[in-house]
Structure formats: C-alpha cells, structure tokens
C-alpha cells in the first residue's frame, strides 16, 4: 500500500466517522437511562481498545497494514448496519466492544504505517501534511452533517455512512495504480 492510497483511504474513513460520531453519542445516551450506563458504554469501548492493542500490533506486523485497514473498514460498514437496530442497553454494550476493537485496529495501523517509512529526517513534515489532509476532511464531514441531517433521518445517515465505508474498502482493495 503506498502513501497516497493510504491517505485517500484514511481521509474517507476519518470523514465518515466524524459524520456519525455525534449521532452515535446521542443514540447511546438515549438508549441508556442513567449516566452510569452511559459511563459503562463508554468505558467498555476504551477498555476493550486498551486490551486489544498489543495483539493488534502483532497481527499488523504479521499480515500487513493493508489487511488490517481492510478489516477495520469492513467491520465499520457492518457496525453501521447494526446501529440503527439498537434499542436495548446490552446491544449498545456489544457494539461498544466491537467499536473498541475496530477503533484500536484503526489507530494502531495508522501509527504503524506512518512509522514504517524510512525517512527519519523529514518524518515530521510528512506526518504534518498527513494530518492536514485528515483534519480537513474530518472538518468538512462535520460541517456537511449539519446540513445533511435536515434531509435524512438519523437511521438513514448510518446506512449512508456504511456505504461510504464500503467504498473505502474498494479503494483499499484496488491494485495500486494511483
């Protein structure tokens, strides 16, 4: 996987998750009926991420960043199909665990990929440019949502984003011609 492709895939992924994040928060807040449940849902996410990082790191080294990113993208596409169906607290907990694992895959792979380049002298500049792109897309995603939500129901937003994740997976699968 070359840098350019990585960048395109990441930009799509980050923009997509920025779009759904606020609505997802709203949803888990509404399903639970106390702040302690909300706390649990959030804690589960972080804890599963913490516990899976070491394993994910090793898997990344063995199978390559491309496969890891593909797992993340397809996983998120599937999760987006599940979110509109949630209505009980235990279901939210399950989703939070899945998202914890997937989130860890994404974060770890991103950093590992950036670290694997052998340009110690200019790494700062390269990562800076990378962050510029990613943040731009994420900002655009958030702004766009403000408008989108007037036209879509929250459920259809999750379906739409699920589709976006699938598109991203095609980008990752495609042979590097770009």
């Amino acid at each position, binding site marked *: 996987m070359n840098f350019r492709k990585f960048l395109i895939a990441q930009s799509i992924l980050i923009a997509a998750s920025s779009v759904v994040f606020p609505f997802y928060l709203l949803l888990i807040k509404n399903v639970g009926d106390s702040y302690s449940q909300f706390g649990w849902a959030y804690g589960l996410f972080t804890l599963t991420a913490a516990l899976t990082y070491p394993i994910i790191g090793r898997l990344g080294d063995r199978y390559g960043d491309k496969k890891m990113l593909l797992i993340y993208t397809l996983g998120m596409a599937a999760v987006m199909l599940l979110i509109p*169906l949630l209505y009980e607290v235990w279901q939210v907990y399950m989703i939070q665990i899945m998202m914890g694992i997937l989130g860890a895959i994404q974060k770890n792979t991103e950093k590992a990929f950036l670290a694997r380049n052998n340009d110690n002298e200019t790494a700062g500049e390269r990562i800076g440019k990378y962050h510029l792109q990613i943040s731009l897309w994420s900002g655009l995603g958030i702004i766009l949502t403000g408008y989108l939500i007037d036209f879509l129901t929250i459920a259809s937003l999750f379906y739409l984003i699920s589709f976006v994740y699938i598109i991203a997976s095609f980008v990752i699968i495609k042979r590097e011609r770009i």
Partner: protein
Amino acid sequence: MKKSIVIVSTLYGIGLILSLWLYNHKPIFIEDVGQLLPTKVKEIHSATSEAELQSLVKESINNNEKISVAGMQHSQGGQTYYPNGVVIDMKKYNKILDYNPHEKMITVQSGTTWEDIQQKINPDHLAIRVMQSQNIFTVGGSISVNAHGRDIRYGSLIDTVESFRLLTPQGDIINVSRTENSNLFPLVIGGYGLFGIILDVTMHLTDDELYQIRSRSIDYQDYPDYFTHDVKNNENIRMHIARLSVAPDSFLRDMYVTDYELTENQNNLANYSELKRDTLAAPQKFMLGLSRYSDWGKNLLWDMQNKLYVGQDGNYITRNNAMRGDSKFMEYDNPSKTEILQEYFVPIDEFSMYLDDLRSVLEKEELNLLNITVRYVNEDNEAVLSYAKEDMFALVLLINQGKNKKEIEKTKKVIQKMIDVTLQHDGSYYLPYYSYPTQAQMDEAYPKNKEFFEQKKQFDTNELFMNLFYKEYSQ
C-alpha cells in the same frame, strides 16, 4: 482483486437487506411526559388530513389493531398509547379552519395548540375562555380531559365548546353538540380518547381584557373566606391562582394569592397586548433545582417566590398574557428521575381541615413535594367523568420521584394515602396522571365511571380505541 470486490459487494448487499428488514420490524417505544410507562407500540402515524385519519382508522379496523390518540402527551398515565397498538399523533393536524371575530367563535383542527389560537386571535383583542395555565397543550388533548385553569367565571372547558366532529370507531364522521348526537357530548369531553378521534372543534371566545394583578400573602385558614367574599363576590376579578407553601418552615400553612382584576380603563389594553414569550427563566430553574435537593432550598425558594409574586402586585397584564404561563423552567431531564403531577379537588368549606389532615399524613411520609398551586373550579356535572361535584379548590402538586419500580411503589403508597384523605373530605382527584389510585378510589371519586366505561363498550364494541388508563380502570 476483482473477486474480492464481488465477494465484499455480495456480502454487503445481504447484510444491508437484512438490516433494513430488521429495522422495519424494530419495536417502537413510546412514553408520555410522566416517563414512568415506556411501552412498545406497533406504529406511530401522524396525519394532516381528515381522509388520512379516516383511512388509518379503517385500516386498523380491518387489521384488528388497537388505536390510541395522542396530542402533546402531557398526560402521564399512558392515556395516549397501548401495548402493540397504533398511535395516531394529532400534532400536525393543526389548522385553524374558521374564525369569526364578530361572533367570537373559532373552529380548529384538534391538534392545534392554545398557543396557535392565541397568536391568531390576539390582534383582534379576543381571548380564550377556559384553558390550562400553560398554552402548550393541544385542543383535542385538553377537551379529552375537560381541562380547567385560572379563569373563575366560565366553568370548565366543556362549557366553552359549541360542537365538534368525531371520527367514530366505525370509521364514520359525525357532528356532536348539545343538540346533535347529544349523548356523546358529555362522554367525549373528558373522555380520554376512548370514543373516537375528535377532528375539529368549534369554541366560544371572549374579549381580551386588561387586568391589574393583586397579590398578597395569606394564611391557609383565612383563604376560603377570602376567596368567597373578596374574590368570588367581586365580579371584576376574572382570574385567580394561589400557591401553598411546601417549605418545611411553613408547610401547608403559608399561601399567597394572585387575583386578576379588570381595570377601569380598558383603553390601555393595546399597550400591554403584545404576547410575551416563554423565557428560559434560569434563576427560577436554578431555585427549583435547589429545592429538589434540600429542605433548605425549599425554604429559600418559598421566600423568593413570595417576594417575586407579591412584588407583582399592581402590575398590569392582559388576559392572553395571563394565560401563557412559563413552562420551560419546569423541563427536567434527569435520566433516573422524573417529575409528576397530582391534582386533588376539595369543597371550599373543607379546605382548612383538609390541609390539616394532609399535613399530618405527609409529616410521617417521605415525598419530595416541590410545589403546590391552588385553583378554583366551578361545579360542573355535565361531563360524565366530572371532577367538580360542587364548587371546589383544586390543588396541583408537583412531585419529584425516581423512575425505578421501588420508587414508583414508594410514591404510590403516599399518593394513595393522600387520596384517601381527599376522599374523606368529599373530594376527588384528576385523571390525566399516573395510575397510582386504586380501583376503589376511582369508584368513590368518580361514581359514574362504570356508566362511562359501559357506554364506551356500547359505542365501541370491538374496543378499537384503547389506552393504558382504560385498561387499568375499566375491568
């Protein structure tokens, strides 16, 4: 590579279809402002036209489904839904159909709110005769509970209704008034949505008037006399409300009264007639917050309110503005707690003794009582489920409680005791709230409830229109 794309697309397609199918079959939960009865319903439909409503009713008849009718859902005991039933949401059925300022009449679709009507009629210096203290409710929901408010001259809401059209359990549309299908008039009004859907309503309006606010503190023992002699007998006092202390230092003893007295010079009306908006009232909200958590807060709130309201003495206000009480400051989104209402009616001459008995019950019980307002209701025996067997005081209690089963049980015990005291004083209680009262209490407070439910079954033989209130008390 192509192969992977095909595989991914196929699997995704299957996942998507499955998800959409499940989504369409996902249970829908609904609850009212009481937040104590989340219930799974089949569908929620909202309609904007008569034809749509009619076809929804016919569809439910064919599918053997149960229908509940919902306005703003400010009732608190599941009066607007039923397990696995269809909910018809009336909020968008809200056009003003006919308005005749000269005859002071208006015809509105039943999802219209009092606020909508006030906006329409205020420029012509007309006002509503009878409504709740706040203007957020729908006309259909208000009529179905036969609401009352600060007005003391026009009786209950039923007295101001000329006629309405009803979509019946058979799917027909009929006119109902005191002369046409007149047997239904006192059943549908105060009928909790059990006789069909009220489509549009024709009501009498009155003149907007300029009042001067008269506000003062008073001891509870002097209140009935004060009301009878100084308020009721003074034709110029058109509206009235009082508050009763829940602060530990003056519990159920201190009161203050607010009278709205017609000013001699009505020419100034226009200067005051701009409709005021609901303010966020952050200080009020904060004080209410303090009083939720401590006796200290309750004492403080009472002192502040006393100053605030008595301080309004002498101010001018129009009838329309007096009929748009703030409601935002009461909004409360604690995830594990909720605020519920209770309303008890007692005859005027029982009032002081009633409070003494209520006090001795409450001193032994644990109940987070935040506020009590007192209104006056005229004797009214027209509605079959009438709460005002004679001229009465109506005490509205705001109670903070937890949402879990244990808390509900705890509150139930206290509320049933309070209702016992109320009944001992020939009183009654209001029905739009949570089903805390026992069947025996219902039978005593509403001796005609058997007749009411009997008539319901005769008119709606298949029990198409259902709600949790009916299920609880009709057996």
